[in-house]
């Protein structure tokens, strides 16, 4: 009987997830066929309007930014053996913390008397406020888990519901925009505190381009004439108009930095060591001098802080000029999707970034299917919730059924390729 060996890391971390993804897509394709639509058309949309479109990529990155934070929030707790599914509520509280500090400086609570500080001071402050807000909301379930043994899953689920009520309460009262009392949202944050986004560049360019357009028109050219005589100008203007709301913003880079910090913290510091040790074996951790309840508590707080930071992207980095406000929708469900991202990313920041980009693009795909499907000929009548099914299948194939693909690939490598793609065998001497 042949000995089975591990797969080569490149195969294990490259090919296997790809195959799992393809499987998930195939099942969704089947689903689309079953509801009587054309799966090829749907996938075409994914390629043309998400993967190969500037707007699509920008939006994907925007969603991914939020998902990197919520994914890391889940992953950090997971390393301590805890399942924090309160990312949604903690994200809401991140937003509440951020908005609270912003409103103070805007003079919202003091009859308009505030401090109009520049962005380079306010933005870091608002980020800290978001982190503290998320951490504070996680602190209570964290305390209950660490010192009272209440299961984190149960308490964080409940805290999501409570957070939703609190945010509505605030948005219909203390935090509400006085100029628009019918709408549960906060006043618009001042523009100098918004994050720099890709759309800003195009908005800036558009000023020149529109001036030039006006000049063309003033010189008596008709629209088709302008287009035909200056194709380069015409295309640049079309692109700028298209991209001026692109929401990909600097917090994506910040998320990447945090991801690197996450790696260092978890695998290269004594705190990460303590967290992982309680995740694997609490008795051994206790033996090793780790204060288990305190470490647990701190981990859940940090996890909440990461979820809280996810709100910065949605509030300060929003693509739409009128949406730099706190809304009752919080993280629009991306707090929950963070669980799937962490699962697929195997709780490693590198994996999480990749998974977040994938899930972000799927999110955008859902938007495109919804918006554009109606205008296609023939019509593509699919609800954007199909993406939820796809996300579920991705989790199924990369999580619960992940070994299925691993076995299949290993079988092929062993029996058909004569061992190509397998890792070197590690010598383990049994006897001393």
């Amino acid at each position, binding site marked *: 009987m042949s000995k089975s060996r591990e797969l080569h890391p490149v195969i294990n971390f490259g090919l296997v997830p790809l195959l799992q993804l393809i499987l998930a897509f195939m099942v969704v394709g089947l689903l689309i066929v079953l509801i009587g639509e054309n799966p090829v058309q749907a996938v075409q949309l994914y390629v043309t309007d998400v993967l190969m479109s500037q707007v699509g990529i920008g939006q994907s990155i925007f969603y991914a930014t939020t998902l990197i934070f919520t994914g890391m929030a889940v992953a950090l707790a997971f390393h301590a053996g805890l399942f924090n599914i309160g990312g949604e509520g903690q994200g809401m509280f991140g937003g509440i913390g951020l908005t609270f500090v912003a409103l103070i400086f805007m003079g919202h609570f003091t009859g308009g008397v505030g401090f109009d500080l520049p962005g380079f001071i306010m933005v870091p402050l608002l980020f800290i406020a978001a982190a503290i807000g998320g951490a504070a909301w996680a602190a209570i379930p964290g305390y209950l888990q660490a010192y009272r043994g209440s299961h984190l899953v149960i308490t964080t689920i409940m805290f999501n519901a409570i957070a939703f009520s609190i945010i509505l309460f605030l948005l219909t009262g203390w935090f509400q925009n006085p100029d628009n009392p019918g709408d549960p949202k906060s006043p618009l944050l001042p523009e100098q505190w918004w994050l720099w986004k890709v759309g800003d560049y195009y908005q800036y360019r558009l000023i020149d381009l529109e001036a030039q357009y006006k000049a063309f028109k003033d010189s008596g050219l008709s629209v088709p004439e302008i287009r035909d005589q200056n194709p380069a100008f015409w295309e640049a203007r079309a692109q700028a108009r298209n991209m001026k709301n692109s929401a990909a913003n600097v917090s994506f880079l910040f998320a990447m930095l945090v991801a690197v910090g996450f790696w260092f913290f978890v695998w290269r510091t004594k705190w990460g060591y303590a967290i992982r040790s309680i995740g694997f074996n609490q008795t051994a951790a206790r033996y090793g001098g780790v204060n288990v309840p305190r470490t647990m508590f701190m981990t859940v707080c940090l996890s909440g802080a990461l979820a809280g930071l996810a709100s910065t992207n949605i509030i300060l980095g929003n693509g739409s000029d009128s949406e730099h406000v706190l809304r009752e929708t919080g993280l629009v469900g991306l707090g929950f999707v963070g669980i799937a991202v962490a699962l697929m990313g195997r709780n490693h920041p590198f994996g999480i970034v990749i998974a977040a980009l994938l899930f972000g693009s799927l999110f955008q795909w859902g938007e495109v299917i919804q918006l554009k499907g109606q205008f296609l000929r023939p019509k593509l009548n699919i609800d954007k919730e199909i993406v939820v099914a796809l996300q579920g299948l991705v989790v199924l194939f990369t999580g619960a059924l992940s070994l299925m693909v691993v076995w299949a690939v290993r079988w092929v490598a062993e029996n058909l390729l004569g061992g190509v793609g397998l890792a070197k065998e590690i010598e383990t*001497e049994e006897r*001393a």
Partner: protein
Amino acid sequence: MREIAIELSGISKSFGPVQANKDINLSVESGTIHGIVGENGAGKSTLMSILYGFYMPDEGAMRVFGEPLDFNSSEKAIEAGIGMVHQHFMLGEPFTVLENIILGAEGGFMLSGAMRSARETLVDLSERYGLTVNPDAVISSLPVGVQQRVEILKALYRGAKVLILDEPTGVLTPQEADALFDILRSLKEQGTTILLITHKLHEIMDVTDRVSVIRRGEMVGHRETTDTSPEELAEMMVGRKVLLEVDKAPAQPRETALSVSGLNLVDDRGVQRLTNVSFEVKAGEIFGVAGVSGNGQAQLLEVLSGMEAPTSGSITIGGEPLGRTPNEVRLQSMGHVPEDRQHMGLVTAFPAWESGILGFQASALYCNRGAMKTGLIKEEMGRLMEKFDVRPPNPLLGTAKFSGGNQQKIVLAREIDKAPDVLLVGQPTRGVDIGAIEFIHRQIIAMRDAGTAILLVSVELEEVLSLSDRVVAMFDGYCSDAHVTAEMDERSLGLLMAGEFDRTQTGGMAA
């Protein structure tokens, strides 16, 4: 020649890359006691599980009293007359003896009829084999030795003609073990065939007629017990000559390093785990704590290492009161090799280099303002692994990938390398093969000779007797007076382990 009760031919079984059994042939004559010895992990238990229908072998055939038997179910094995007494009893604790015996063999719909006939059978069996038990006693109220008798009766009640006992003496005092062997002998006289699995050679010499030795999944030989010796069996088990005696000079005890007085511990559930435990351990001696597992030794180690706070009593180390957390205790130069390396001493999911700093992860040795000095740790670990003969000496390998003996060496390396003044050692050779036992014993003695005070907790009687300079026994949370080991033998220490000492005294301070 007698009838062959069990015949195995060409049995092979592998679990993934591990070949647990390889082409095993075995024939057991009916009405004999047949011993199977081998190191931990040699494949004894796998073989017995195959016999009992738990595992399906990859290859091979089996005959029971000449009849071929399928391997796939325990029910068929029971039908064919095979009974198994597991190392860990399979008894319903709140049930009575009688209820346990008919469990799974109730027969009819109503319980009362089965109970009545079972009672008769049970009384009959008890008388025939001298297995006296009260059928109406509740299991949890019975001593371990009697619980084991119930297991044997259970098998006999189901018509077992072949009885397999898997490490039956692991949980028994020497006196209880002797009683068990008497029972086995009388079973044999009545015609029962017995397969005794153990890694204790003196038991084999004591009670068996024939013995088979397994090494690394392979049957290396069969011997008539009268024709062999413990030395030969040990050599067959390990594959080379083994020193069974521990070679050590007399101790040179100096000042008291660890002093425990009036220690009490009541656990979360209100159970008194330690009662008035007092003793002193001197620098340069090995202080043995004997006792059957579960008599408070684990709790004693937890308290001494700072993991658990005592309810009352005082502990001093080097004259100072003991710290209140494992970290504080480590700073007082106390090392601790825990009883259970896999659940306490190591994080098996970590690579070896990370497990190798457990407890020292925050010390300035390995950590600079929170950031671990990974390069230095790996280098250091590689050096330590060479020094302690850990195989393979690869610090990047996952801790779980090392064998039990090598895992134990990683723990020892970590604790001994810090040259502590006091070293707590729990079950240093549990689940460790004979070759590694020698090495570990030598390391402990070298520590003692270097002036460390060593507290050795072990359930292996031979280990305590051969390693320690002074010895106490623990029973039900009580601790006996200390005795000079040289004046003790298996019998006298066995009596202490069974609780035959004065528990009203403070204890532990004599000798």
